[in-house]
């Protein structure tokens, strides 16, 4: 069935226009609210799709509901992107965890693969716990450092390192198989 609506993928929109939309949306302008959703949808869709997989569309919806219900509390529109990213990761992990838990892969020392050359990224992601997918998305898709990823996920940096190792190991096993 074709998807009709806001189509991913895309990159983060220019900040200046989005800030103006935030101000108008905070004043209750429905057209600005919709425009803001359209602007942010590609980015939120990338995060939620990679972490929540089949539940990604639900996670996108829940992310925007959480964002818009709390938009008035956002004092500095320039902080929008980081704030939305944090909510998207949280909602995506939550949506994914509502499904049956996945079996963790064992640790294995392997070289870091480049996800852009994955044979089947989705299949490899499916074998990971949602929290591990979140680390992989933030590090390898968004390019955050381990320290930034730890701060975003509110976990110790050591946890990010171990989750990342497991996630990359799982990817490497897919290539090797």
């Amino acid at each position, binding site marked *: *069935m*074709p*998807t*009709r*609506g*806001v*189509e*991913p*993928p895309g990159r983060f929109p220019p900040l200046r226009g989005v800030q103006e939309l935030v101000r108008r*949306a905070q004043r*209750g*302008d*429905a*057209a600005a*609210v*919709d425009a803001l*959703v359209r602007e942010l*949808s590609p980015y*939120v*869709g*990338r995060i*939620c*799709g*990679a972490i*929540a*997989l089949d539940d*990604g*569309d639900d*996670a*996108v*919806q829940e992310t*925007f*509901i959480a964002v*818009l*219900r709390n*938009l008035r509390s956002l004092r500095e529109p320039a902080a929008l992107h980081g704030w939305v990213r944090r909510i998207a990761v949280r909602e995506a992990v939550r949506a994914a965890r509502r499904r049956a838990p996945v079996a963790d892969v064992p640790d294995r020392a392997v070289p870091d693969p480049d*996800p*852009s*050359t*994955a*044979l*089947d*990224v*989705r299949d490899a*992601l499916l074998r990971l716990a949602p929290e591990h997918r979140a680390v992989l*998305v933030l590090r390898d*898709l968004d390019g955050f450092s381990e320290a930034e990823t730890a701060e975003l996920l509110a976990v110790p940096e050591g946890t990010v390192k171990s989750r990342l190792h497991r996630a990359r190991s799982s990817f490497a096993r897919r290539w090797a198989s």
Partner: protein
Amino acid sequence: MTEWPVASLDNVRRARVLAAALPGAGVVEETFDVPFDRYWGFVSDLERSVPAFDPHVRSITVESRDGDRLVVRAVQPSGIRARFDVDLTDDGWCLMVQRGRLFTVVMAAVPDGPDRTRMIHVEAVPRRVVGRLLRPVMQRNVRLDVRGIRRAL
């Protein structure tokens, strides 16, 4: 090579999101046993459809058009007039915002297979206190509208 999986927000989800942001919104979501093209072909022809399904509207007139963005004038049976800015830029999406932001309407739809359509209809007075007080009125109006669409199709 396979890309990273990407999620999306279809028009019905997009309308749910907007409804959640509008205080006191009335919302009805249903499935029609009508192909999407027929459903949307009717609903998006506002001059024809709205007076046919909405008992609170006597006529809709398109005053100006810039691509899929319109300005329309709605006239109630009592003669009261209102101007709306209308966004029809996506197939299956109609956002109507009254000038002065007194009243907002969202009509959205997606195909549900080849012969069915999933639709959502939202109406709200986007004011925090008044909007919530008017929620029962909005909900009743939306139910009436959806019943009218079903009858008209």
